[in-house]
């Protein structure tokens, strides 16, 4: 059996953590872009698209992330396309993230008084201009805290991608735990890794929230 020093563990877990971070960033950025589109579909003046977006959100919020990953991973494979685990993980998490962000942001958009839409509309701004120039800048301020809060959920959510074999932090941890017979030490380090990723995000969210509150314009 191979001997692992504590440094070997940390070095290997570091690589896994980097994958976790990369996957989180990918899911968050792509999920944000898709989420913005879903948001527009959800709140825009198109009844049919509204219902579709609502269904999208309900489906992704109403099923476990793990099932979504399985469906993406095995579903695409069923169509004859071989999906690598990292791609399935990225797609699954992006869909999941987009649904949650769209719903969080919808709440923020709906918190803006109706009079703001009406004033912008009466100035002949199109719906998209009303959203872009008047509603979103105001909604952004209230969206910062819940959005950053959700980003912590995304980081922790990446752990389930270990089940389809993506070698992020948790998967790396379970491999090392099996190889070293020291699960408590290894998973302790894994937990520490997640904490080191998530804690700065929480702090950053709190700081952003204070800045946005202090600067009222």
């Amino acid at each position, binding site marked *: 059996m191979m001997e692992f020093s504590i440094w070997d563990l940390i070095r290997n877990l570091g690589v896994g953590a980097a994958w976790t971070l990369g996957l989180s960033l990918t899911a968050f950025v792509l999920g944000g872009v898709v989420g913005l589109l879903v948001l527009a579909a959800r709140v825009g*003046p198109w009844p049919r698209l509204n219902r579709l977006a609502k269904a999208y959100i309900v489906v992704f919020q109403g099923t476990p992330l793990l099932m979504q990953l399985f469906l993406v991973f095995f579903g695409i494979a069923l169509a004859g396309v071989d999906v690598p685990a990292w791609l399935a993980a990225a797609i699954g998490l992006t869909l999941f993230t987009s649904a949650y962000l769209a719903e969080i942001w919808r709440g923020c958009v709906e918190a803006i*008084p109706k*009079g*703001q839409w*009406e*004033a*912008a*509309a*009466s*100035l*002949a*701004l*199109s719906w998209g*201009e009303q959203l872009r*120039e*008047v509603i979103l*800048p*105001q909604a952004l*301020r209230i969206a910062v805290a819940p959005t950053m809060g959700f980003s912590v959920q995304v980081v922790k959510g990446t752990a389930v991608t270990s089940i389809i074999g993506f070698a992020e932090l948790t998967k790396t941890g379970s491999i090392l735990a099996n190889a070293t017979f020291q699960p408590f030490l290894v998973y302790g380090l894994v937990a520490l890794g997640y904490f080191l990723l998530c804690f700065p995000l929480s702090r950053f969210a709190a700081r952003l929230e204070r800045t946005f509150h202090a600067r*009222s*314009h």
Partner: protein
Amino acid sequence: MLVRIDGLHKHFGANHVLKGIDLRVKEGEVVALIGRSGSGKSTLLRSINGLETFDDGLVEVDGERLHADQTDLRALRLKVGMVFQQFNLFPHLSVGRNVMLAPRTVRQTSVAECESLARAMLAKVGLADKFDAYPDQLSGGQQQRVAIARALAMQPKVLLCDEITSALDPELVNEVLATVRQLASEGMTLIMVTHEMRFAREVSDQLVFMHQGRVHESGDPKDLFAAPQTAELAAFLGAVG
């Protein structure tokens, strides 16, 4: 005729709120819509720029027609300005930016031109020095005057005023009414829903009394105030003093 409304009908569910409204407004005319709450006057006003949809009838402003179910409202809204009871200034933008937003976004006027336009409009309502202030730093009366300047910056053919002094403290009402009076004297076409009866009598050319979704009585304000022809208008004027 600058504004023509023909046979306007609207339902809110089972509630028939506009029961066939006809209205004509000439260029430069000031029209005051009065009536009890629920009489349909705000709904009628909001139909003129498409903030309220209607079920049947026609609205036409300066040749721009609006039918029931129409979704493209841009051409109409370029001709119609609106001022709201709750001001509805954009809180994230400075006063100057509030006024500049629509000319910049919709008409794509250059920033420099927008700025001089905004300064001119703010000077018109007596707030030239507030260009860089934010709405929450202004009094209600000042905010409402900014809202007027913002609407005027789009050079509308007609300005709709929806109870624009109702949310103001009593001592701030007059500065806003003075601004409206000045616009009227400059020949701006105005349609206003108001509870300020004395102001309506002094400033308007046409008084429209709405009752249960219909134009119950209309005409020269001096005649109507002196000798209302219907019991309902007499009762209304008696009630509001």
